[in-house]
């Protein structure tokens, strides 16, 4: 079968660092082609070059001519020329305009207009159709984008891209912020598009997804092409080994470190959609919180942490007094730490170096005397942390904005590891993190548990919770529905619980 799209010997350098080194790849029409690689392997960079968002330093690309048998050289000047040639991309990082409405974002490049005046009705109607097609019925077309959760925004971004005519569709970690339901829906659409003869490049760190969805797999390592294989010929373990270039060892067998001592007790928290939620977490315990996108998990954690002031409820850490935190400062002083979901918005100082980001939470505590920063110590700690998490960077003075998505997430976590705390709240801790690194983070969380820390993990990746937690709580439509101990759970039960709140709501309506 002749390829739809071919990449030959692509090279890309940032300054003196080579991030793509002679990568070749081809995608057939009607194929889902997975692109795998560890964080910083160069997947996003390659896709950006294809989509016309970056210029390559060397190599060539070509796309099959629709009429003849020949292939035309493909050299996009910018995104527009790439789109004209039939390329569509959903990027790893959200690229929304937070002050525009949902409809305006969807139609940003093709607003229905007469003489430059937007036809608002038509805009709303068409946006409605697109949203409905993705079961986003409850998103208003005139809602301001910035007020939606990350998951919603990601869905909207995907819906936008899938709606457009294209020949090659690139999805860069589309499911990182999606829940099970959304992921299912997306897969249906992707299979339908494949059947229409569209070529799809699919990037994900969720290897089960890749195994389920893709036809072929290309693995990149350190900017180099490792191999391209039929999906059916690889196990997920093979994939991991190919990506890492070495055997990363087996899945850890689970070991619980939970003690009997309560580390944090949350009682009666009400905030936004969250209604009267109470739960406890013990020292050494890892508590997972599952739920659908928009069910209120992030809001719960934010209210506990004092990032939003809860309308009701209290948090008790250790044997301190039960209080309602009104500023994260109080929570941190009490011994809480929180890795936020939206790292760009409130987790990272993107325009600052890794070093600043790593030390920001503990400057006063660990890296200063008399208010003067002890830079040597700061540097050492940041370097140690980068090594420990295997953050891929040139050095710790690299701006966080120039790191790959997964490595940004590592920096966001490292801030709290350096600071230390009694209770760790993780909101989607491995979003965009590669398998190997994910294992590291699981091990890290495990060692925190071993050290007696209490841990709360919110994740849309159920497997992740199943793998790492002592206990899993399920939130549905803002309510705490159920609580499962390890050993007493099945993913089916958990999914049922996650839908429960919505069923009841539907029944009432």
């Amino acid at each position: 079968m002749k390829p739809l799209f071919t990449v030959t010997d692509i090279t890309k350098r940032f300054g003196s660092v080579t991030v793509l080194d002679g990568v070749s790849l081809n995608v057939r029409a009607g194929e889902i082609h997975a692109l795998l690689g560890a964080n910083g392997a160069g997947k996003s960079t390659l896709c950006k070059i294809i989509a016309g968002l970056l210029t390559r330093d060397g190599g060539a690309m070509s796309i099959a001519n629709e009429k003849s048998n020949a292939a035309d050289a493909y050299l996009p000047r910018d995104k527009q020329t790439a789109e004209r040639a039939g390329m569509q991309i959903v990027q790893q990082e959200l690229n929304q305009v937070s002050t525009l409405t949902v409809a305006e974002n969807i139609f940003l490049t093709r607003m229905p207009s007469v003489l430059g005046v937007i036809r608002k009705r038509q805009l709303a109607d068409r946006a409605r159709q697109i949203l409905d097609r993705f079961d986003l019925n409850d998103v208003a077309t005139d809602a301001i984008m910035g007020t939606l959760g990350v998951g919603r925004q990601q869905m909207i971004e995907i819906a936008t891209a899938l709606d457009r005519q294209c020949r090659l569709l690139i999805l860069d970690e589309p499911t990182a912020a999606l829940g099970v339901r959304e992921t299912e829906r997306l897969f249906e659409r992707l299979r339908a598009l494949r059947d229409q003869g569209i070529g799809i490049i699919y990037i994900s760190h969720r290897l089960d997804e890749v195994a389920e969805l893709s036809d072929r797999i290309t693995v990149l390592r350190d900017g180099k092409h490792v191999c391209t294989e039929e999906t059916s010929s690889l196990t997920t373990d093979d994939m991991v080994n190919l990506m890492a270039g070495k055997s990363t060892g087996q899945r850890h067998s689970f070991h619980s470190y939970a003690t009997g001592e309560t580390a944090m007790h949350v009682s009666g928290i009400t905030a936004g959609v969250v209604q009267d939620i109470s739960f406890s977490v013990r020292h050494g315990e890892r508590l997972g919180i599952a739920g659908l996108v928009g069910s209120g998990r992030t809001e719960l954690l934010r209210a506990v942490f004092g990032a939003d002031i809860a309308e009701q409820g209290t948090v008790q850490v250790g044997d301190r007094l039960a209080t309602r935190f009104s500023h994260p400062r109080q929570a941190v002083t009490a011994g809480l730490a929180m890795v936020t979901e939206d790292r760009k918005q409130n987790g990272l100082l993107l325009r600052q170096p890794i070093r600043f980001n790593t030390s920001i939470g503990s400057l006063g505590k660990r890296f200063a005397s008399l208010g003067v920063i002890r830079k040597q110590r700061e540097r050492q700690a940041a370097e140690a942390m980068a090594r420990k998490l295997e953050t891929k960077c040139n050095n710790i003075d690299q701006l966080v904005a120039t790191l790959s998505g997964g490595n940004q997430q590592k920096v966001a976590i490292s801030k709290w590891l350096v600071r230390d705390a009694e209770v760790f709240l993780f909101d989607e801790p491995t979003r965009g993190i590669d398998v190997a690194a994910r294992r590291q983070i699981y091990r890290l969380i495990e060692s925190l548990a071993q050290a007696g820390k209490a841990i709360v993990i919110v994740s849309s990746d159920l497997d992740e919770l199943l793998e790492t937690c002592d206990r899993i709580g399920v939130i549905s439509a803002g309510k705490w529905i159920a609580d499962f101990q390890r050993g007493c759970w099945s993913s089916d039960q958990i999914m049922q619980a996650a839908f429960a709140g919505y069923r009841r709501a539907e029944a009432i309506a």
Partner: protein
Amino acid sequence: MITKQMKGTVLQYGGLLTALALLILVFSLRTDSFFQISTAKLIANQIPELTLLAVGMTLVLVIGQIDLSVGSVMALAGAVLGVLMAKHDWSLGPAILASLATAATCGWATGAISIWFRIPSFIVSLGMLQIARGATRRLLESKTLTIGSDVAVISEPLAGIGLSPAFLIAIVAVFAVQFLISSTVFGRYCVAIGTNAEAVRMSGIRTTPYAIAVFVISGLLCGLAGLAPTSLMEAADPGMGNGIELSAIAACVIGGTSLMGGRGNAISTFLGVLVIAVLQTGLSRMSVEDANKQIITGVVIIIAVLIDTVRRNWEKSEA
């Protein structure tokens, strides 16, 4: 539907309208002559230039840029008008076109230099402020140039309504720019560029032409603004609009436009202009010592914005 929209409008402009109403109330109680139609007409005929500049500035701020040169570009436009009419006997129409073209060119230059070379527009427009002012003074030889009553028509109140063409132009500009921002592709791109230029670029839209176009529009509005005082004084004045850029920006910010880009509303800006104008007019009616007037001006501006901020937060907690 309509009531909902009306409620929305009241909410949106409620804070500023309250501040304005309070000001008018106080001045009406403290002076004999304030609460009169004539005062309203007077203010209407005094604010065209600030309105036009502030409305243009709103657009510039929306895309996350700033233009400090508006006052001198306006003066330059007036100077061109004056020189052409008084020294070269041009008639009003062509002279207006020439002065608008000059102002638009200045706006274009500011925009192009700062966008192409990625120099902060603060600096480029500060440079343009000096350049345009210097050019104005050269053109006018640092003297006021009397043009004569040919030019008066622009600011002469129209029989019947008592409002000048300049004011009407300013009002049209307010609504036109608001329409531009809220209902056109161009305007939405401006908001988008001001919010997240990177995302706009990523979606394949070239931001440069839009950004530069905004500066051109702002320049054009400066040109229009220059007509009003020139016509009122029947003379081109080399010092015209000195320092007015701060008032123009203040009007925008009072109206809730963000200096960080991505948010702006021309109608609110207009309300901001009104706050400033009512304050000035009211204070000059009262015999308060000048130093105290200054203190009061400062306090009132802060309070006006405070009221608006409180309103906004209240609305948020409502929603």
